[in-house]
């Protein structure tokens, strides 16, 4: 085994390749790797944040849904109440109207009855006077017996 110039040649070659790797290979590749590491880190962070956002949005949506349901229930309840109220009012109005109509009819009937009574009374008075005239065959002084006739008519 001879030691010769190859030794020096190899030393120089070695240093040249180390220099090349140091200048052109290592920084570029390490830079790229670090850049990717950064990218992955931010990507993961963003994914996590997105997950959180999603959870938040879901919770918000659920809350809003619940609120909407409550509102709807409230509205329906209000509407029911209002409907009942309207129904009650309508019933009351109908009852009132009926009462009024009934009262008016009754008044009219009463008036009619009174009038009939009055007519009847005057007819009875006239008839009784005519009857009495026939019985007595004399003209009764209507004036003299008016009081009596009136009294009679009132009794009928």
């Amino acid at each position: 085994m001879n030691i010769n110039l190859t030794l020096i040649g190899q030393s120089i070659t070695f240093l040249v390749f180390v220099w090349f790797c140091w200048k052109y290979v290592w920084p570029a590749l390490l830079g790229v790797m670090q850049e990717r590491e950064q990218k992955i880190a931010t990507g993961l962070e963003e994914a996590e944040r997105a997950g959180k956002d999603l959870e938040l949005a879901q919770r918000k949506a659920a809350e809003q849904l619940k609120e909407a349901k409550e509102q709807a229930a409230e509205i329906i309840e209000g509407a029911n109440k209002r409907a009942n109220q309207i129904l009650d009012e309508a019933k009351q109005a109908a009852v009132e109207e009926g009462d009024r109509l009934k009262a008016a009819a009754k008044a009219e009937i009463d008036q009619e009855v009174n009038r009939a009574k009055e007519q009847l009374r005057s007819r009875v008075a006239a008839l009784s006077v005519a009857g009495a005239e026939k019985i007595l065959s004399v003209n009764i002084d209507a004036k003299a017996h008016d009081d009596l006739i009136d009294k009679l008519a009132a009794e009928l």
Partner: protein
Amino acid sequence: MAGEAQTATDYIQHHLQNMAYGKLPAGYTRADGTVLSESTWTMAHSSQEAADMGFWAIHLDSLGWAIGLGLLFSFLFARAAKKATSGVPSGFQSFVELTIDFVDKLVKDTFQHRNSMVAPMALTIFVWVFLMNLMDLVPVDWLPMAAAKAAGNDHLFFKVVPTTDLNVTLGMALAVFALMIFFSIREKGTVGFIKELTLHPFHSGKWYVDIFLIPFNLLLELVSLIAKPVSLGLRLFGNLYAGEMIFILIAIVFGVGVLGFIGAAFLQLGWAIFHILVITLQAFVFMVLTTVYMSMAHDREDEHANDH
């Protein structure tokens, strides 16, 4: 295998000889008997010639494969870096990023100082050394025979695993060592670095005692300092050289009858599977130790002194 006339020893020696291009001195008698009139740069035609070239020779195959695989690594990773997006990564980009992530984590655990060069260096070492080691899994004769055919020379020396060449592993260790010294001096100053070498581990606090301790300290510290790159280079070389050697021995068994062929096939498979672990582990160890040495170079002794 490589010629019936060859003995097993020749075969092994041929496989362990690098393709050397170097300077032979004037008056040298070459393998074919010719005598050189003046010193010449030429290809070595025998192991003896390669050895006689001394220091002024270069292993074209080791260095060629090392540079080729280094370029492959640089090209693939630079292309991945150019195409890289921070979006969804494609297949190869994922693989590159996985490797980078692995190296980056390891360096961050081991090396806590501020130096942007250490992590890319660790990546380069890991991938490059792994690729060089991986050549060991290519059957030992394929590439050398292909190269011999292509060159038209049956005796062409051609080793394809750069990390089985001591020059290559020690060369890298040497570069790491140079960086260690450079960062030590840059971080601690020349005085600080010399202090580290001379005032540790024995230190009394009284200058007239310390002066006599300096030679011992220097000896100990120098040994431990030099041992770092040497052990770094030798460890990788030793593991891969041994692995290569076993593959060569198994390759010889292939030629010994039908039984030998079947046995060798199983041995080859088993050793290759085991070797996948070895080559990865050795690349990993080289990277980790380099990072640790860089960390030690950046450690300031006075920071530790305050802890006591």
